[in-house]
Each structure stands twice: as C-alpha cells, then as structure tokens.
C-alpha cells in the first residue's frame, strides 16, 4: 500500500513538473492565423523552415534572440541548442532555400510585432502580457 502511494505521488509530481515545464512558454500568433492549436510536429516544421503554413494560413516564424523562453522553446519543441538551431537556419540560407526569420530582443517586442503583422507566429514566456495576439495550444 505504502509502495503504491509512493509511486503514485512520484508520478503525480512528475506529471505536474512536465505540465509546468510545458506551460512556461506560450506560442502566440497574429489573430489572422486561423489555427487555434498546433501539434508539436507542425510547430517544429514551421520553426525549422520545413513548412510555411498552419491550419490553412500562411505563417512566418518570429524568433527570440536569447533568454529563458528561447531556451525552453527550443528544448521543448525543436530539440536543439540555440547554436545548432541557428546553424540549421543558416544552412537553409546559404543553400538558397530560405531567409533567416526575424529575430527580436525580448518577449515584449515579439508580442508587439506578432500583434501587428498578419501571419506571424512566435513564442514568449508565460508571464509576459500578450494583448492583441492569440495563444495557440500545443497538442
């Protein structure tokens, strides 16, 4: 009985941790983007240049330059360090397959840009005010 309870508590704590880890970063989009949620695979495709559409809308990814939200987003949804992630984009740039996504200095700048530019999609820390944009649920 004690062992079962202990196991249950461990699993519950782990689940809460995972949920909290996921919830630290919000994926935001301009209201013109039709999608209300996005799969992890589709999100990765957009932010690695493999795809330019989401839920029937053309989308353009907006990146953060650095910081906690940037690291958490890359770890949770891209699976690469910031160095490897930028190198991947440069590979596309130098082979003529893409241009480098716009990169902004902070969460506030990302919210401001996404709110005023149709088709844009970005990521910010959970605690950042995000008026004027929609939040996409990551499933």
């Amino acid at each position: 009985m004690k062992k079962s309870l202990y196991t249950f508590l461990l699993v519950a704590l782990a689940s809460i941790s995972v949920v909290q880890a996921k919830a630290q970063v919000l994926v935001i989009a301009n209201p013109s983007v039709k999608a209300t949620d996005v799969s992890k695979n589709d999100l990765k495709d957009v932010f690695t240049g493999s795809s330019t559409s989401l839920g029937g809308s053309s989308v353009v990814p907006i990146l953060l330059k650095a910081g906690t939200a940037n690291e958490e987003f890359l770890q949770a949804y891209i699976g690469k360090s910031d160095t490897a992630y930028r190198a991947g984009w440069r590979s596309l740039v130098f082979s003529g397959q893409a241009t480098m996504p716009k990169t902004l200095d902070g969460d506030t700048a990302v919210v401001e840009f996404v709110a005023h530019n149709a088709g844009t999609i970005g990521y910010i820390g959970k605690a950042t005010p995000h008026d004027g944009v929609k939040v996409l649920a990551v499933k």
Partner: protein
Amino acid sequence: MKRFVAILAVSLAGALPAVSQSLEDLNIQFHGYATQGFLYSNQNNVFTTTSSNGSAAWNEDVVNLGATPIPKLRVGVQARYFLLGNYGNSITLDWAQADYRFDDRFGVRVGKVMTPFGLFNETQDIDPSYMFALLPQGPYSIASRNSQLSEYGGVAYGTLKLDKLGKLEYRGWDGIRAVTKDDGNFLGQRESGTTLPNGISGSAIGAALHWRLPLEGHALMFGASDLYVFQKSGVISNTPTTGASQTTTNGTETVSPFSQPFIFAKYEHGRWMLAGEVWKSAAKQFVSLTGKATTESINDNTAWYPMLTYKVTDKLTAGSYYTQEFNTAAKLGPARYLKDWVISGRYDFNQFLYAKAEEHFIEGTLTDFDTTMNPSGLKPTTKLTILKMGVSF
C-alpha cells in the same frame, strides 16, 4: 591580396550582425561565412597542395544577399572566393535565383540554382552546415564542385503530407550544367597538356524524393535521386607535355549522356545521427583532336559510405565515416579505388565561430591525387590531418 580580403571579411564579421538588422527593416538580409583550413599528409600531396609539408592553401569566403520583397517571393545571390591548392583562386557565383513558394506543396526557383540531389549536394560546400571538414569524396568531390553544385535553370519542389505514412518531399530540376576548365574532373587532362578553354556544358535533368516517416521522437528519412546529364561538349586545346613535338592542336571533347543515381537514408534521435548513401556515375569521354584518331575513355564509378555523429555536449560533436569508391573501368591498382576511414570533431564556440579537427586514413589514389604535385610517384596510402576554423553570420 585575396588573403587580405579574407582576413578583412573575418574581422568585419563581428560588426555585421548590426548591419544585418538594419537591412532587415528593408526586408534585405546580408549573411556570410569564411573558413581557413590546414592540411597535412604523411605522404602524397593532396588536392594540388603541398600537404606533405603542411599547407594552408585552403580558404573560402562567402557573401549572401537575400530579400523577400513580397510574401512568398524570395530573391537572392551568393558569391564565393574559393582556394584549394591550385583549384579556384577566383570569385564565382554560387547561385542567383528567384524563388516563389505557392504553398508547402509547390514552389519553384529559377536562375542559377543549387542542384538538390543526394543527401548533401545542396549543402556540400556550406562548411558551417555539417560537422566534417571533408564529406565522402566519391559523390562530393571538393575538387569537382563546379560540375556538381549548381546549374542554370529551375527547380520545382514541395512537400506532400501522407497522414500516417509521414511526408514525401520532392524536387525536380532542369537546366544547363557548365563545368569550368579548372574543375577537378579535368586534372588528369591538364597534366597531359589538354585544356578546355571554355569549359564544357550540357543539359541536365533530375528528380529527388525524400520520404520522412512519422516516428515520434525520431527522424527517419529514406531518399533517392537521379541526375541525368545529356551529352556535353567543349572545345579543347592540346599541347603535349612530353615528346619532341610541342605543337598545339585543337579539337572537341564530348561526354556521352550519363546518369548519377543516389540512394540514401538518414536517422536522427537525440544526440545521434546515422546516415548512409550509395552513388554511381558512369560516363564515356571522347577526345577528337584535328588530324588524330578519336580517343575514348571510360569512368564507371561507384561509391558508398555509412556515417555516424554524436553530440557530446551542446558545443562538441564527434563523428566518423567510412567510404569506398572504385572505378571498375580503371586498371587494377591503387588508382582504381579510394577507401577512407575518417574520425572527426567539431567545436562550436558560439553560434558564429567553430573549429574542426579531422583525420583521414586513406587507401588508394582514385580521387584528388595528381601527378604534378607528386613527381616521385603516388604512394598507395595516405594519412591526412585537417584543421579548420570558420566564422559565419
């Protein structure tokens, strides 16, 4: 002078990100990279360098300008200064294109475009994009870049979602392939006194398919491509390097139509990457000099490799590959094959600066060994050490 330009380019790299940002407001982007390599071989000079004494004659400087004037349309140009031994030492155009991406399923780019065959052809000359200093030289010969990398024409591309079967990426291309007179393919001819003053060119078409399987947490891709080159021809000039007569004779060189099929696969999971490829290229060359009988030569090359890399830390990656290439039309001996064991490491100081260290254990002299730089004759084995640094922005 060109070395000074290279050093200047690297020095300016730190200031350029700020310039990139202001140009970005105009939807114009400026990027670039520069590399400096060092080669040392225990015997046999490689790539027309004096590598047996140590050689730093390996340098690249690339500038890239791109813009997105309207949504879905990208235009851009990329130029390169390349030096490797006696190869290059000139500024060339990598690509210059307009690319319109209707949607994920269909896009088209036209101009001078990179040819998207094999696993690495689109990125084989983009040193910052992969961990090895040298890719397997059979399919990706650094000395024969001009004949492989790009063509004047167009590429159609797209991705088709197959639901539970994953995704299918396709590429199709058509264009003119222009090979310059200093390409590595013509090294043996140049050493015997034959040059192609205007290079050689002909039409080429091809297609590639990449099937990406839908495995959660894993990335697995199988691919195949084929490049079909129609007959190519060019004017030649021959001045014998031996014998009593040094009279120059003109004529024509013709390469018969040939195909270059590739089969490849790539698997990535966590810190691991595993890849492999098989490639074949068989072609006949006919040389017709005025007043002389036409000579025919045949190359029937096959190459393959498995490759493995492991991300030790966020900054350090280690890797290895083993490759074989052989020309079944060549006479028996070391010149018929190339076998290469490679151990390599790459360290990324930050997102801009990196270094590579690599050791090659080579048997055979099929690719990239020339007689002019090895007057005592070629030895059957070579150990080659490579150190390389690069900066990109």
